[in-house]
């Protein structure tokens, strides 16, 4: 089973929740940090030896002796990454290239070949021998977050676990979609503020567009009558859990601690939560 933990708005506690969920279920779940623009889970899950794999993309390279400046590649490229500079021939702009490979395929003279450029890295670690964390990290200035997210999700598991948790990128755009798309169920973390609810609705619209089942976790909740709880009740959205608004949780987080450090009783609740999700997705217990 694959669970994506997402949030329309950033800063709602999405990573805090996914780290705690993974920690409480370390015997049966692994965690993949798909927030490749700003991966954070590793800041709370330290230790273990790391294996790092580069994520390469292929950008075109021109062999000037074969190119007859026919212009097929420049008119094909949707990203304007190629240009004909008159008699000086073909120019390539790798920073605009989305690595689709189309130009190489359309070139009738085989004048274009692939050159590898680094788009990101995937780092895999096993913490205390039991919890696997995979972190995708986008190169600064690189345009291709979805490529790195895919590589993180497809990275071969170091441990056999029934459940994989994706810490999804915030927002509702292409990065978010390319992560949630791969999951069986999406857990949306929100906070009970007008910004939080507005962005929760956007995320729900995106998820419904992908026909994915979803549920909600309310962070910094002031009880079952807060803004978010009322909102979810009105819309008939299942609320899995409420994490109370407490300054000691904020301080514990600011010192690099997890939700479980701030409130040890959270462990049991997070195990029960994963059991429920598994029942919901697969119709049976986690075996």
């Amino acid at each position, binding site marked *: 089973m694959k669970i994506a933990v997402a949030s329309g708005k950033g800063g709602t506690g999405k990573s805090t929740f996914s780290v705690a969920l993974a920690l409480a279920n370390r015997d049966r779940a692994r965690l993949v940090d798909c927030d490749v623009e700003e991966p954070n889970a590793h800041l709370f899950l330290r230790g273990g030896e790391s294996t790092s794999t580069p994520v390469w993309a292929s950008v075109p390279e021109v062999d000037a002796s074969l190119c007859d400046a026919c212009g097929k590649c420049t008119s094909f490229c949707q*990203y*304007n990454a190629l240009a004909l500079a008159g008699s000086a021939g073909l120019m390539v702009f790798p920073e605009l290239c989305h690595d689709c490979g189309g130009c190489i395929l359309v070139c009738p003279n085989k004048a274009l070949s692939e050159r590898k450029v680094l788009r990101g890295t995937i780092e895999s670690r096993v913490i205390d021998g039991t919890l696997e964390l995979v972190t995708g990290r986008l190169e600064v200035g690189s345009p291709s977050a979805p490529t790195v997210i895919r590589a993180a999700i497809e990275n071969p598991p170091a441990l056999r676990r029934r459940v994989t948790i994706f810490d999804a990128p915030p927002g509702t755009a292409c990065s978010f979609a390319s992560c949630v798309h791969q999951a069986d169920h999406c857990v949306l973390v929100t906070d009970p503020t007008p910004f939080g609810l507005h962005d929760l609705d956007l995320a729900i619209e995106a998820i419904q567009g992908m026909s994915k089942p979803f549920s909600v976790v309310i962070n910094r909740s002031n009880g079952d009558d807060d803004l978010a709880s009322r909102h979810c009740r009105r819309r008939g959205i299942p609320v899995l859990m409420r994490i109370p608004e407490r300054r000691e949780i904020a301080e514990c987080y600011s010192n690099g601690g997890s939700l479980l450090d701030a409130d040890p009783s959270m462990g049991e609740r997070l195990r029960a939560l994963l059991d429920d999700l598994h029942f919901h997705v697969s119709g049976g217990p986690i075996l």
Partner: protein
Amino acid sequence: MKIAFPATGTDLSCLLDGRFGRAPRFLVVDSETNSYQTIENDGNADASQGAGIQSAQAVIAAGATAVVSVHFGPKAFQVFEKAGIKTLQADIAPISDLMDKFRQGVLPRMQGPDKAGHAG
């Protein structure tokens, strides 16, 4: 020789457009005959990225050997430089006036791009 101008209108009395890659069209003027050709730039004006690159390519394909603009982005500038096209800087004015200045040789050469690029 042929000189290209980003243009707000469709004849030589119109003003130079303040943009390059996202100008609506280019006028390519023959300095001997004063005849001109219009290149519509509508596809590029709305491009998310690389508008300057594609506009530069279109201007070069039309046979221009010099281009006059208020601004040049880094990528368009690179394309012109590689193609050996002269890049000349001007303020917004009617294109016919700029042609006179071009003939007098008073339009300054651009030393480098003066606009940051736009990624998308």
